[in-house]
């Protein structure tokens, strides 16, 4: 059963009482909140997620209203994981961003059986394409465009790699567009489902894109990486897709990983194998049509 098959009243009562248990790729998350505004934002955005039955939920998170003695009339929320708060409270209109950010943090901090790259990952023609990048290089925006143009979403944030098998695991989560990207995507992809704009977050204005339904339905299907593309959006720049030496790709990947150091030798071997078996590129782009055409050409050529 998926979320949209649950009546909204039931959805709200699950969230406020025993917890909503949803499958986010390889992880099951139990979410609890009594905040109606957050519940109403989540209902359409989480519509396609499968409800978890008879399985362990790895993460138990909660979003609670917080009352401040110093500012009694302002309204804040707190994020809790297993009853503990990993970061300070935020204004309550940011609850959705805080929830998504908190779940990402939980995944990043607690997952070491997989190698975690800070990377968007999409799939086409049975191969995964990694788009690793530093924050601000437009990886979420590019990822959003690709997954509405025939690519399957693995993640806009986490490249989850099984270091033994070499497979990448999809974890299709909401994609948080920031600032100007929101308008850009609304223009380019009128069909994309976006959540409310959330103002004044740490990263400015944020709006979450709902992952395509097919990407969520097929979240159990892993893939081997075939391409590693380091993207950078530069205003008005002509498209440039240049091969990257393996050694450089190695360093960029290792330094864009959440737990490369934690896994030690395992991650060294996994990344070595990855750059040896993938075609590695550096990408500069400004125009969606051109970049999608170029990446289509790349992923057709197998």
């Amino acid at each position: 059963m998926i979320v949209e098959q649950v009546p909204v009243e039931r959805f709200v009562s699950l969230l406020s009482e025993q917890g909503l248990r949803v499958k986010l790729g390889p992880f099951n998350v139990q979410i609890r909140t009594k905040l109606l505004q957050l519940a109403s934002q989540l209902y359409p955005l989480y519509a396609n997620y499968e409800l978890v039955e008879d399985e362990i939920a790895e993460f138990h998170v909660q979003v609670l209203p917080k009352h401040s003695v110093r500012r009694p009339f302002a309204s804040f929320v707190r994020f809790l994981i297993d009853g503990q708060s990993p970061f300070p409270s935020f204004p309550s209109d940011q609850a959705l961003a805080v929830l998504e950010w908190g779940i990402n943090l939980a995944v990043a901090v607690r997952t070491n059986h997989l190698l975690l790259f800070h990377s968007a990952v999409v799939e086409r023609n049975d191969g995964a394409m990694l788009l690793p990048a530093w924050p601000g290089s437009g990886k979420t925006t590019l990822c959003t465009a690709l997954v509405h143009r025939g690519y399957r979403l693995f993640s806009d944030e986490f490249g989850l790699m099984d270091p033994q098998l070499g497979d990448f695991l999809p974890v299709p989560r909401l994609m948080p567009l920031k600032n100007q990207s929101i308008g850009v995507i609304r223009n380019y992809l009128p069909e994309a489902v976006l959540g409310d704009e959330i103002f004044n977050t740490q990263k400015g204005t944020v709006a979450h894109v709902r992952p395509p339904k097919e990407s969520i339905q097929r979240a159990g299907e892993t893939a081997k990486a075939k391409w590693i593309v380091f993207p950078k959006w530069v205003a008005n720049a002509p498209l440039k897709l240049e091969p990257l030496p393996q050694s450089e790709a190695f360093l960029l990947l290792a330094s864009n990983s959440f737990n490369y150091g934690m896994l030690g030798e395992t991650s060294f071997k996994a990344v070595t194998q990855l750059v040896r078996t993938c075609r590695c590129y550096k990408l500069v782009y400004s125009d969606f049509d051109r970049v999608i055409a170029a990446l289509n050409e790349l992923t057709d050529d197998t």
Partner: protein
Amino acid sequence: MTRNLPDHHRLLLNALNNPASVVEYKIPDWELLLRLVRRVKLLGFLAAELERRDLLDKIPVRAANQLRSGLIRAKKLQQLAHWELNRIASALKDTPVPMIVLKGAAYALAKLPSAEGRYFVDLDIMVPKESLDQVEALLLKKGWRHRDISAYDERYYRAWSHEIPALIHRERETEIDIHHTIAPVTSRVKIDTCHLFDDAMTPSHTNYKILCPVDMVLHCAVNLFQNNELADDLRDLLDLHGSLAVFGNEDPGFWRKLIERANQLCLGKPLFYGIQFSRLVFQTPVPGNVENELNEKPSIFSRSIMHFLVPPALFPLHPDKPSKYARLARFLLYLRSHWIRMPLHLLLPHLAYKCYLMVVPGKTVAKELGR
């Protein structure tokens, strides 16, 4: 003990005492167990126990993944702690100051069973009080620095504590706590640390000094029943259980030496509680009633109160339905820990300051003023 235990405590204790039994656990049991072991910092320990028995493939794969993740993290933290120790030793190599490794890293050096899979968040060492300034100055010169702390906390450490404010290396960021004794200087317990340094030993495979077995046990007991607030401290009791079991088994004279040392250092009370609760919770094989030979024992009245308060504090609260009684027990033990740590004329202003901080967090104030 297990008869009166709440279900979730029994679930946890059973997994710790008899790891092989978890293969029988159902899905909801696993989900709760993972949350509980995390809370008491024993995820890595349980993972190590299951890995040693080749059981990680015989449990639900989601649980195994979380446990493996925890074990990988624990091993990395241990590696970092050992490297930090190596760096400290190197920084201090030209000084004749004796340095003793304490707590987690010492348990690992002593190869105690509870050290495997243990999370090392910081590194604890002890140097003689008269060398403290020299050691601190040397480390500050060689790349370590103090964390930003308030003037109040700085004074708290310097005047009243058994350690100085933590040092962290500017690149590696591992925290070092430098102790000069094993109980706060303001507590009613006064320890002659010369004995600890005189009897320290060097495990055969290392160059580092650790406390001798009886002192290691006493330090663990003091830490638990004198320095800590006991909330979620089940891991420390497990350390105590592990060290009592191993040392008692290795050396037939251990128990007599332990009692004599506790009497010599006037640490009878914490050891009494340590033995009692270790036996109660983990069925530690302690011969007869050795604790009755201690010169200083808690009164019957204190014992019976502690008997009711300690287990609900040591064990984690149920994550979804925390009991009010357990919360009260934790609050009372919090007060107790301060009461025995400081005399009243220091304690009351300290608690008042802490209450003030709860309402007006110091750092936030500083930040807003700075804007």
